[in-house]
């Protein structure tokens, strides 16, 4: 790629990232966006990070993980503990939470990914549920079934919460895309396409599956470590299967091979969830019905394996403008 094109793309993406992270933050601070709306969309940001976590595993291993909520809960509780009991500064506690989740991912992934077959779904499901039981019983550490309170600046200040959380989301998306558009990404896609051929051509299939799984666990832990200080309250059912299914729905609807698709779906559905509150119990019925309809009639979801590209959008916009000039 020529350097000038490279520079243009970099500036374009940097501008978009800065705008998305700081502009709404400013609007929240001066009150143009009210706190309630801010909270919904900030929560959507966390959901988007979780959706990316599920997406990574789906994309790398071709299997389903139904326990990402478990890693999120680990990130949340560990972050709280290191912040309250060990007096770590909040950013450090958050990173520690994510790291613990990554380690858990390593131990869960290692035996399971060696196997061929659909075992990952069941194992991760069990993992999430056992974790919930453990969290309920470890009252000293987690406050038991009643949960644990964790008031921080993120819970108090909506604009800082937005900047931190959406900033993290932007960073995750950017780093992940960079990673996938490289020889590492190609290696990962080759594993998804044909494991035996990939193996015979120098790709250590197991290593890449493990990498994907541990990175996904880290990302989920990061989401949890952001969730705890933001919401200010964590209960053991954060780890439950039902929550893992929520994140799965975002990925399916957005497109199982698309990172940007998952983000878009997470934002749309999180907003919709608030909007549909009046449906009460029926809400729980609608999501699985939508899931089946998508699977039957549009299994690739919104974006399939494509990514929404700001660069391409820019090119289309400028091309149209250029054509208009020529027309004159």
């Amino acid at each position, binding site marked *: *790629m020529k350097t000038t094109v*490279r520079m243009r793309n970099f500036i374009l993406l940097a501008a978009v990232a800065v705008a998305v992270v700081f502009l709404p933050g400013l609007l929240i601070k001066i009150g143009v966006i009210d706190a309630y709306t801010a909270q919904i969309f900030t929560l959507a940001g966390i959901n988007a990070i979780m959706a990316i976590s599920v997406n990574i595993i789906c994309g790398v291993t071709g299997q389903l993980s139904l326990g990402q909520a478990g890693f999120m809960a680990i990130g949340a509780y560990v972050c709280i503990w290191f912040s309250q009991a060990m007096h770590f500064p909040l950013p450090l506690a958050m990173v520690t939470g994510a790291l613990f989740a990554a380690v858990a991912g390593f131990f869960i992934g290692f035996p399971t990914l060696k196997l061929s077959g659909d075992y990952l779904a069941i194992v991760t499901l069990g993992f999430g549920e056992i974790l919930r039981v453990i969290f309920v019983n470890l009252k000293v550490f987690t406050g038991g079934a009643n949960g644990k309170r964790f008031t921080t600046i993120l819970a108090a200040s909506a604009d800082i919460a937005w900047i931190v959380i959406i900033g993290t989301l932007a960073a995750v998306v950017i*780093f992940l895309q*960079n*990673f996938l558009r*490289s*020889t*590492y*990404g*190609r*290696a990962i*896609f*080759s594993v998804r*396409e*044909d494991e*035996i*051929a*990939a*193996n*015979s*051509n*120098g*790709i*250590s*299939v197991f290593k890449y599956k493990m990498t994907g799984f541990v990175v996904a666990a880290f990302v989920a832990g990061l989401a949890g470590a952001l969730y705890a200080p933001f919401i200010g309250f964590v209960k053991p059912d954060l780890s439950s299967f039902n929550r893992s299914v929520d994140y799965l729905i975002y990925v399916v609807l957005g497109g199982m091979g698309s990172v940007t698709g998952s983000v878009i779906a997470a934002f749309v559905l999180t907003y919709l969830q608030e909007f549909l509150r009046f449906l009460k119990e029926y809400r729980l019925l609608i999501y699985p019905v939508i899931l089946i309809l998508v699977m039957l009639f549009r299994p690739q979801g919104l974006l399939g394996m494509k990514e929404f590209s700001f660069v391409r959008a820019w090119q289309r916009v400028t091309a149209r403008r250029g054509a208009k000039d020529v027309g004159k």
Partner: protein
Amino acid sequence: MSDVLLRVDDISIVFGGLRAVGGFSCELKTGELVGLIGPNGAGKTTVFNMLSGVYTPTEGSICFTDARGRVHSVHEKKPFQLSKIGIARTFQNIRLFGNLTVEDNVLIAMHSQREINPLDAIFRTPRFYRDEERLRAKTLELLALFKIDSKKEELASNLPYGEQRKLEIVRALATNPRLLLLDEPAAGMNPQETQELMGLISFIRKQFNLTILLIEHDMKLVMGICERLIVLDYGRTIAAGLPAEIKENPAVIKAYLGEEAMIDA
């Protein structure tokens, strides 16, 4: 230079109650072009699978000398490890990465030759861009050799059959192998394509200093380019030697009974 590149000692493999290959031995010297032939189901691909780490032999040993002169026990290694020490293979039923482009298929095979680390990719350092250029340039060179460079942006599954087979070979070459295992490279090709392939195989053997072990049913190709032959039937070696000898060998003719028409070059 005629060092022993590959020494296979009495390997066998048993699936359930069936001994698919029994007591197979051979020695490949560097630079040789050897053909592995035999009727369908004789165990030829099974031998390849053992040589490339897909199966582990239940008995026997396989030793391979890499470019640095180190000897490795093949039978204890996994396919990706063998790829790194210089054994490459193609598959009987093409196994390309169908939903990826032609270029990507070859780039993937060069993954182990990267000179960057994950951080370079994540943070898009100049080193990352340099390495990508280097790998893409090499890919283009290889594709051009086989005249499929113009199709580098096409999805591999959209290529015509003959070009898919060529791409598999290009991909295998991209791993910088010393030993190339070709499994029925001419399957499904017409006589013209087969002739072209024969030329290509001879060419790459010289150009890349390869040792080639080749499974084929097309006797014209086998007789045309192989220096010597090993014949397998029901998992056992029934004959080995020069093509001219093998052609007249009664055991071989008996094994191929019913396919005599193929054995006239």
